[in-house]
């Protein structure tokens, strides 16, 4: 069952590579949150109330409700156009994502470690690399936030790969990290939206000394 969910997770990465609209990205992020919750829930060996509440807070409330709603609000407030505007065509993005997954699988196949669950490892590593790729290949600042959130999802899966139990400290760390980053980038973006009309990364290259 977990493998099925993890394969679905990989398919959402393909979908993210070819998605055109900002709202689609937000929906994919929400879906990934739900998938992660189900994976962790099945992975739990004994149901500890505190642990369950923490995981519920982190995945469902945070990853699939609060952050998508906040991003939607930011989109609306700054009147960001709905197209994603990648630097490269979506076709090339798709091929690069596929290559990332294939290379990750080949890489993890050469590791001999009994403690490491390789399915989780493959999904985690390819999610992290796809997130990085989304950050470097998209033009808008808000897409960079989304790429960052994909990387966070990857780190979350990676923490499942190394141990059976989720260490609570790691959980708290990830949660704080996402919270701070989204909030700061949101405020930053709001200010940019107020002062300048455009939130295009290309405009930053004009800032140079003469």
């Amino acid at each position, binding site marked *: 069952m977990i493998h*099925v969910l993890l*394969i679905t997770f990989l*398919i959402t990465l393909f979908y993210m590579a070819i998605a055109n609209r900002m709202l689609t990205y937000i929906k994919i992020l929400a879906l990934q949150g739900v998938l992660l919750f189900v994976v962790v829930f099945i992975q739990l060996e004994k149901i500890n109330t505190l642990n369950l509440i923490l995981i519920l807070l982190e995945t469902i409330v945070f990853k699939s409700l609060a952050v998508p709603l906040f991003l939607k609000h930011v989109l609306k407030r700054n009147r960001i156009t709905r197209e994603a505007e990648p630097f490269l065509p979506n076709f090339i993005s*798709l091929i690069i994502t*596929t290559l990332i*997954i294939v290379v990750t*699988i080949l890489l993890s196949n050469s590791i001999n470690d009994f403690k490491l669950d*390789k399915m989780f490892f493959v999904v985690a590593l390819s999610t992290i690399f796809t997130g990085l790729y989304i950050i470097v290949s998209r033009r808008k600042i808000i897409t960079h936030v989304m790429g960052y959130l994909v990387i966070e999802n990857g780190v979350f899966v990676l923490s499942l790969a190394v141990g059976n139990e989720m260490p609570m400290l790691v959980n708290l760390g990830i949660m704080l990290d996402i919270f701070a980053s989204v909030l700061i980038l949101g405020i930053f973006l709001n200010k940019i939206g107020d002062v300048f009309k455009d939130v295009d990364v290309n405009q930053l290259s004009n800032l140079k000394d003469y």
Partner: protein
Amino acid sequence: MLSFILILLASLFFTGIIIRTKSIASGRKGPDLFQPIKDVIRLFKKGAVYSETCSFIFQIAPTIYFASIIMAMLTVPFGQSKGFISFNGDFIFFAYVLALGKFFSIISAMDTGSSFEGMGASREALYSMFAEPAFFILIGSLALLTGHTSFQEIFSSLHLGSYISYALTTLATFVLIMIAMIENSRMPIDDPKTHLELTMIHEVMILDNSGFDLGLIITAGYLKFAIYGALIVNLFIGIVDYQFAIPIFFAIQFLVAISIGLFESFIARFRMSHNAQFIVVLTSVSLLIFFGVLLILGKFI
């Protein structure tokens, strides 16, 4: 043998069901279920008109196209019963016999010298080129899973046991339906109802065919749908007894036809530039199937 008859029967009503579903979804009553067959019979009664500028290739191409579809149909098994032609590696034969037919339809479109038809031919060649790796990775990974290389042995030893093999079968069904849509030039890739030559793919290639030849090409389209439907059925029936397998066959063909009809009613055709990336998604998904198979076999992890 059995599969040949069943596919012929299914092809009689398959396109009719698609058209009827689309009519009902758009609030019309729709034509008779056998109207497509009646259209084809009307075409078969006519002679063909050939342009003076085209050579013998244009005249033989529809026949070869039709014959290639029949050959491909002969290799499809049904549960335990083999197709007419069954040998090790017959899925490669299946794919390339279809490709041969497609090659002839492409060069006959080029032969007419019409600029529209050349454009359609180039699109058809591009999209079927992209769809080919998806099909081979899919069937190849099923062959790896079962350890056999002919259609009949693959499908009869495909056991559904764990969650992951259900997931793989679902993905395989999705990929096969999408390949069927691409091969038949249906909705997300191409709109069969469009009236503008610039946006057509398959229709623009057969603009110059008439009468008997057109009838052959249209019949080949009906058969192709039923062939892919039969492949999907084979994923599920395995070694079920005939008295259950035959109703299941028709039920699944019916479901596939209705879902294609609903899909076509509620979705718009993609932009031409988006088609290529959509088809490559199928290859990526079948790569995931391949790694899932490696996971089941324990070759990885």
